[in-house]
């Protein structure tokens, strides 16, 4: 009886030692991955900062007004004036959609018929 207890205890110690060994390496692996991820996050944040700075630089009011001036022919943008405010009932309803065509006429064959 006592012998079996000794053997079981020894096996349990082996098992626990193996488990601890594995956990140790798994933890180290996870820490390594975390470090790599954090480095990636840092790099991404840095890049995001640069992109946001660039976005802000490209959207600076000076440049936008210059662009509005350059493209005045196409866009016709002018500064907002007080008389441009309107009331909601000045906005017209969208036009009614056209009725669906129920008896389509095949025009491709008509064109063929005209050919000599």
């Amino acid at each position, binding site marked *: 009886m006592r012998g079996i207890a000794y053997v079981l205890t020894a096996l349990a110690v082996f098992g626990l030692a193996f488990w601890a060994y594995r956990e140790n390496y798994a933890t180290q692996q996870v*820490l390594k991955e*975390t*470090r790599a991820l*954090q480095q990636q*996050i*840092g790099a991404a*944040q*840095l890049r995001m*900062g*640069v992109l*946001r*700075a660039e*976005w*802000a*630089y490209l*959207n*600076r*009011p*000076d440049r936008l*007004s210059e662009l509005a001036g350059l493209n005045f022919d196409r866009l016709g943008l002018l*500064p*907002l*004036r*007080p*008389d*441009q*405010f309107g009331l909601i009932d000045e906005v017209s309803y969208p036009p009614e959609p056209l009725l669906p065509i129920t008896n389509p006429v095949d025009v491709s064959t008509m064109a063929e018929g005209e050919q000599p």
Partner: protein
Amino acid sequence: MTRTPLRPLARILPARAKGENPAVIERENIRQRHAEMQDRARVRAEGRLLVLGLFFFCAFLVVGGRMAVMATSEPQEPVASAHGASIAAQRADIVDRKGRILATNFETHSLYAQPPELVDPEAAARGLVRIFPDLDEARLIRDFSGKRKFVWIKKRISPEQKQAVHDLGDPGLLFGPREMRLYPNGKLAAHVLGGAGFGREGVNAAEVIGVAGVEKQFDDYLRDPANGAQPLALSLDLTVQAAAEQVLAGGMKLMNAKGASSILMDVHSGEVVSVVSLPDFDPNDRPRPPVSGDPSDSPLFNRAVQGVYELGSTFKIFTAAQAIDLGLVSAETIVDTSGPMKVSGYPIGEFHNKNYGKLSVADVIVHSSNRGTGRLALEIGPERQKAFMGALGMFDPTPFEIVEAHGGQPLVPERWTELSTVTISYGHGLSISPMHLAAGYATIANGGHYVSPTVLRQDGPQHGPRVLSERAAADARRMLRKVVTDGTASFGEVPGYAVGGKTGTADKPKPRGGYYDDKVIATFASIFPAHDPKYVLVVTLDEPSVQAYQEERRTAGWTAVPVAAEMIGRLAPLLGLRPDVEPGPRAAITLTSN
């Protein structure tokens, strides 16, 4: 263990037989027994002491060992606990009220040389001068071929320049990482943002510190890594600020002024939505402060908060409002404005020596009568006037949160005499910054509560101490509106926005005393819409002069007012204010009797 009896019969009986005292035997036995017990207790205590000593020895060993390990190991961040909140090593961004970036950071490099490592110093110097034309080739060659081991070449270089230096291929030219403060909008809000520079510098890093404006005022907050990536949100609005700068710059040029400033402030929350001071500068390349001449001529000078001027007639409304608040007069009370009027021997005159005769208090403001306001001030008296000005914050620098604001100390007369009372009632003898004036007008506009101007975004209205009664503030607003409809600020009418305001034209003081005849500060302080004010706009032009109707005009009505009207027309839509029909006066009730 065998227990020996205390009175063994074997010894007692013979002792009795001999006539000896048997108690002696008993005592002897007790003594022996006690000695045994003492021995046992000592052994046990010694054992315990040993175990305890061993335990302490081990504990000290562990502590000492841990200390030794910690002392000899490299310091290291605990990795597992650093997840989640990332630590931002960078200086925090500054954003406007809608989260648009006003200041951010940028990674660049610095360039330095280690002359002993240089392969060909002269070729390196030639190459560097080709890349950076502002460098001096002879000096570089002298530095590179001398005894120096380390030479800074450039503090900040762009990626293209870095690549070009790389292409030179000299191993003695090295780069250090640098963090640089970037203001992507250039000159926009330059005076508020201030600027940043390098503090302590090393090869691998340099400290970025704020040198002016909010960058300096909130330096600790911006540098604190505990704030993470939380940016500093200002009350400024990028779009409004850009439009205000554009319109004011145009107005300044048109009115031939040498400087201009404008402040747009929310009357309830005290948020300054736009503050402009012209001429301005680029905070990315902040000019050096001037070492000679008048500091107010430098573009670094912030006219809106640093420039203390006598702002002239814009003060009259405070006198009128206080007189109404104290119940001395109402808006309709008739005041005699005819001359001559002398206070402490000094004559008080009117603009162009006019004589308005008898006017109502409202018309005193509309026509901007010095003698009329002077007489009101004499009724108020020096003590009450001084207390009122103090409650409006006119004696201390404004609490506006930029470093320069601490320099805007108003110039207050040493003795508040009767003459001071009269001159201050129309804005002379007390020099304040336009920011003080904006705060004062905001008090009238919001119904009598003092608001302190702030550059930080607020969540709701400030409920400052009450300075004026609701009724007096409403009367003052009606008078300000009348100045625009019938008075000196008729160019200030903007259809739909019911502008109310007061003009002020003050002669500039000479540095050696006295006043210039031909140099003025023209101010227009306005509130809009006058029936339900949302914003205060103060426009100040420095030395404006414009030709109109074959005459040179300098008064605010001809210079500052049109600029302010243009600004309101341009800014109010951007602020989301709809043009509105002004509510007309209530129908007059005719009293009849049978």
